[in-house]
């Protein structure tokens, strides 16, 4: 009975100020979309980092079938060449710059590749043979990349030496800056959302002061009096959060999945499914923002 009553009160409250409720929905929708966009950029950065990015700085790619580099004149890397390279890596002259290194075979390379590009069509056209084996080096000082490069570039069996960070760092710093902008906009919008929810709840409490006055007099509990107002704000905010989640999914599906991944086939993009990780966070954030702001408002404007 009490539940049915509270639901009825919420319904009438939502109907009574439709325009305010719609504006709460829209403001939370926009603000949470920005929050979600920042989250998506971070997910995308992680996706692009792949397996090795956070573990090593320098990769020495070894010759494979089609390699044309000078060091690959003798064809694919031989076991002796590979042993020589490992000995050189362990020699004191080089080891003083190296924290740690690992060998990635063609099969391992294929596995990591598949993980990173799981959302791209490219994964189906690649076989383990096409991917080079490599040594992955964690540098004591990443700035000393030149030393490794000079030492190994001309070695037989080495196709190329790459400083991974140099390739991606600039892009990542741009993406991080974009996330920061998104978060700042989201922050301003969230302040708007909180104030708007507070105003809406205040208007709602004012327009129903007759009912709440009577409820007080006949001894309704604080919860029964306040819950409809709080849930009114929470429901509007959660609808906004759901719209934001849907928008993020649509961006991942249509913009990243259908458009960007065709423009840049050699870049790993997040899947639409991954954006759904953000949805519960957005729903909880929206709901609790509304809940807290209406609770604080009611404390001042709805004496019990």
């Amino acid at each position, binding site marked *: 009975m*009490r539940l049915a009553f509270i639901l009825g009160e919420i319904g009438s409250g939502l109907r009574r100020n439709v325009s305010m409720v719609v504006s709460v929905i829209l403001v939370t929708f926009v603000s949470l979309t920005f929050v979600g966009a920042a989250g998506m950029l971070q997910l995308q950065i992680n996706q692009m980092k792949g397996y090795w990015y956070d573990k090593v700085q320098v990769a020495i790619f070894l010759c494979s079938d089609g390699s044309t580099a000078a060091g690959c004149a003798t064809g694919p890397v031989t076991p002796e060449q590979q042993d020589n390279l490992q000995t050189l890596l362990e020699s004191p002259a080089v080891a003083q710059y190296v924290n740690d290194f690992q060998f990635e075979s063609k099969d391992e390379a294929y596995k990591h590749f598949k993980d990173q590009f799981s959302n791209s069509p490219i994964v189906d056209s690649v076989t383990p043979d096409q991917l080079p084996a490599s040594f992955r080096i964690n540098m004591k000082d990443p700035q000393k990349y030149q030393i490794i490069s000079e030492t190994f570039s001309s070695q037989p069996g080495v196709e190329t030496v790459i400083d991974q960070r140099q390739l991606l760092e600039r892009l990542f710093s741009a993406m991080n800056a974009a996330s920061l902008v998104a978060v700042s906009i989201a922050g301003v919008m969230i302040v708007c959302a909180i104030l708007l929810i507070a105003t809406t709840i205040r208007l709602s409490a004012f327009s129903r002061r007759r009912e709440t006055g*009577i409820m*007080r007099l*006949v*001894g309704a509990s*604080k919860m029964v009096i306040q819950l409809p107002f709080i849930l009114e704000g929470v429901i509007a905010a959660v609808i906004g959060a759901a719209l934001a989640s849907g928008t993020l999914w649509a961006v991942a599906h249509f913009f990243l999945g259908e458009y960007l991944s065709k423009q840049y086939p050699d870049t790993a993009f997040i899947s639409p499914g991954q954006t759904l990780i953000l949805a519960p966070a957005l729903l909880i954030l929206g709901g609790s923002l509304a809940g807290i702001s209406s609770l604080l408002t009611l404390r001042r404007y709805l004496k019990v």
Partner: protein
Amino acid sequence: MIRFDNVTKVYDQTARPALDNINLEIDRGEFAFLVGASGSGKSTFLRLVLKEDRASSGAVYVAGQNVAKISSWRVPRLRRGIGVVFQDFRLLPQKNVFANVAFAMQVIGKSRSVIRDTVPEVLKTVGLEGKENRLPHELSGGEQQRVAIARAVVNRPGILLADEPTGNLDPTTSMGIMGVLDKINQNGTTVVMATHDDDIVNEMRKRVVELKNGIVIRDEARALYTSMIPVVGQSRRLKDASGRDEEPPTPGDRQPGAGEGQR
């Protein structure tokens, strides 16, 4: 049922107290009028009983409980034991008669079937059977006040507080309302009614507590033995008996069965 122990209520430090050291006891099942000029503190008295305001000093007991000691989450329970009626009815305009009365039961979580059984019964008590589906604006003032009374008593409170319930009604309609309040009082509910209407007080011949500037200046019990029967026919004769004399205040001085001219 209601006891005031040296209760003083000060709203504004610069003005005189709204209630000044009130000592008063209203027993279970009693019917008491609070009379006095505007600003004498009648509404303040009722607000203190409801714990809408707290006394500046002294203690207010309701049903044996010191209301100052009731924690805020238990105040609703105190109020469930007290029905309230106002001069301006305070009905919900978009709800019909039945729904207005049912509202008081819904918000405290009474089941649908209990509501279906109780509301018509209470509407009958206040003389509104057959008008369940009317909206407030389709009712006369007297009928609206009956709805408000039905709402106040539907949860069977031990106390009914009425703040000038006949203030907006003509004398005949007012007497009808008094009949309803008397019937409710006869069912065992303690009734305290603040009013300016001396005709009604005289005709009812109940206990009268007169306030002036926040002080009890008169407390008389009248016609206690016949109070169970509404005394419509005797109004003119009893009018002379209304002790409306302006004598020095004697707070808390109650004289059961006091005669004419006595304080």
